[in-house]
């Protein structure tokens, strides 16, 4: 187990290094940010000066090495646009995204019982209703659902705010939206963001339940006289959780890296929107840092998923070590 984790961490360092090169090169190829900063009136000399201030006049490999040298100390430089340290920018935005992630992930977990129900009683009306609604949640694009939600709940009904994060409270230097207004601002983007994963969970739970419930080991558990509740929640559930945990890990990581579209539509100040702003302004340090953060989150979540996996499924032995 320990060997497995160490090996995994070494692998992720290599992965991060490769991603840093790709990210750096890709962002370099997109264009020169000075073209955006400087207006039409600026002279070549002014542009020259801007290039020098931002360090863009030096050869690419020097820029890269400087970046790596600072990045190991978690210093990702200064944003070209706001002149603030990149780590500070991300740290400002991260709590909002984490909040949105937790909120919408919790909502989407409702899909598990709904899917289990649909798998146990596939012919019931409710199950058919659940399944057809899940197709809608699956196939309608989130920007459309988001816009419709704003139109209905904010414009027509006026129940919920449509943009921003509302009032926040600051605890230990981190801002939390644990106020009435903050929670109200979380509802629309949270629900819209949850729909896809909710539908995914419903379909996964249902299909796996249908499969597992007709296996011999479920029949054997019934033949032992074990109560139906235990058959479903212990025998069947443990088995359907294995594929679900894998997918949910990926989904959680996806949410944590910022919902680019949903944050944009709801003007929600998370890191997804930070990334989009950085793309629009070719803010290289922010972009590169965002990509590194994304990769780190994926690596971390996958590590946790693998550890959970070994707990749920005894057939999987981490690192080949015997217990």
């Amino acid at each position, binding site marked *: 187990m320990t060997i497995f984790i160490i090996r995994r961490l070494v692998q992720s360092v290599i992965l991060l290094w490769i991603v840093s090169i790709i990210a750096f090169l890709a962002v370099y190829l997109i264009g020169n940010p000075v073209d955006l900063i400087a207006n039409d009136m600026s002279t070549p000399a002014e542009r020259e000066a801007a290039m020098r201030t931002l360090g863009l006049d030096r050869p690419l490999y020097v820029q890269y090495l400087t970046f790596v040298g600072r990045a190991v100390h978690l210093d990702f430089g200064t944003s070209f646009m706001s002149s603030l340290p990149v780590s500070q920018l991300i740290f400002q935005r991260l709590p909002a995204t984490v909040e949105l992630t937790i909120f919408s992930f919790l909502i989407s977990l409702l899909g598990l019982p709904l899917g289990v129900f649909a798998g146990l009683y596939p012919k019931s009306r409710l199950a058919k209703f659940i399944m057809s609604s899940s197709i809608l949640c699956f196939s309608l694009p989130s920007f459309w659902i988001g816009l419709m939600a704003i139109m209905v709940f904010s414009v027509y009904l006026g129940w919920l705010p449509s943009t921003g994060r509302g009032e926040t409270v600051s605890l230990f230097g981190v801002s939390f939206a644990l106020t009435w207004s903050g929670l109200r601002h979380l509802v629309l983007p949270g629900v819209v963001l949850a729909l896809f994963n909710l539908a995914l969970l419903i379909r996964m739970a249902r299909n796996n339940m249908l499969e597992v419930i007709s*296996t011999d080991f479920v029949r054997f558990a019934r033949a032992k006289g074990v109560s139906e509740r235990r058959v479903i929640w212990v025998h069947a559930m443990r088995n359907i959780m294995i594929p679900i945990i894998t997918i949910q890990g990926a989904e959680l990581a996806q949410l944590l890296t910022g919902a680019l579209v949903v944050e944009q539509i709801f003007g929600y100040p998370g890191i997804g929107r930070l990334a989009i702003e950085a793309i629009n302004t070719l803010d290289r340090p922010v972009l590169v840092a965002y990509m590194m953060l994304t990769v780190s989150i994926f690596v971390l979540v996958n590590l946790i998923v693998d550890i959970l996996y070994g707990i749920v499924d005894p057939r999987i032995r981490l690192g080949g070590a015997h217990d």
Partner: protein
Amino acid sequence: MTVPTLSVQNVCVQFDADGRELTAVDDVSFDVDPGRVLGLVGESGSGKSVTALSIMRLIESPGRITRGNILLNGHDILAVTEEEMRHIRGSRIAMIFQDPMMTLNPVLRIETQLIEGILAHRKMPWRDAWTHARDILGQVGVPSPDERMKAYPHQFSGGMRQRVVIAAAMLHEPDVIVADEATTALDVTTQSQILFEMQRLCSDRRTALIWITHDLSVVAGLAHEVAVMYAGRIVEMGPVDEIIDNSMHPYTRGLMESLPSRNQRGRPLRQIPGTAPSLANIPAGCAFRTRCGRATEICFQQPEVMEPRAGHSSRCHHPVN
């Protein structure tokens, strides 16, 4: 006259398939007495497993028992509530399934799977249940049961898993054990060990055993009585020696003759022509007539059960002897 441990009377099981009623088990009756072994023989699709599941009342939708009675020590288990039936399952009637690789839940420890079987029927401290389960595991021939209790199914061989399954069936010393192809998936030496073990355990405890198999040679060595099933019906039933030496039904004859061990060296193996009919198109009348060399006009009518010799019955218009 003593009451048989299990008495299956005129049981029919039907499946509803796209509006058509398919009969998987048709008017099946047999009795098993304490300590006796009934061999239920037939090809795949003959209704053996459905018969087994109907004894457990574990037929899943769209199937259901449409007729008949199943008496356990004289009480009809088709009449009890689902909750009462749950208490009978595993404690009075236990079942062993075909593939030991699939029967145990892969993510639960052996101890969990055995102990839940105990606690489902008896209130006792977990610790006592553990000890009881461990003892049974030792009795069915699992070496060092103390350590094996903690193991998961994938750490066992097929034979050992089947022993665990047998232990689970033995937990409450049931009156009846239904074993559905319990040794089919095992290799020959393991099969004979398990058969020996089952024979010993059941005669010690006077458990009635229903041994379902397609392998007549297994039944010949194990069973006291044999029932041969074809297309959902019992076509011949009687004491094991009678069935093997004096079979009356052409189908039983065919099964016997297709056993390689009974063939004369150098002669081509005999076989029954054709294949067993599928549920959807079982021939009217005698279901075997399409594959039978003795069939005539009259075989288009369903033959009644005839018992020319005491205890040996068959359903055939043209019995062999």
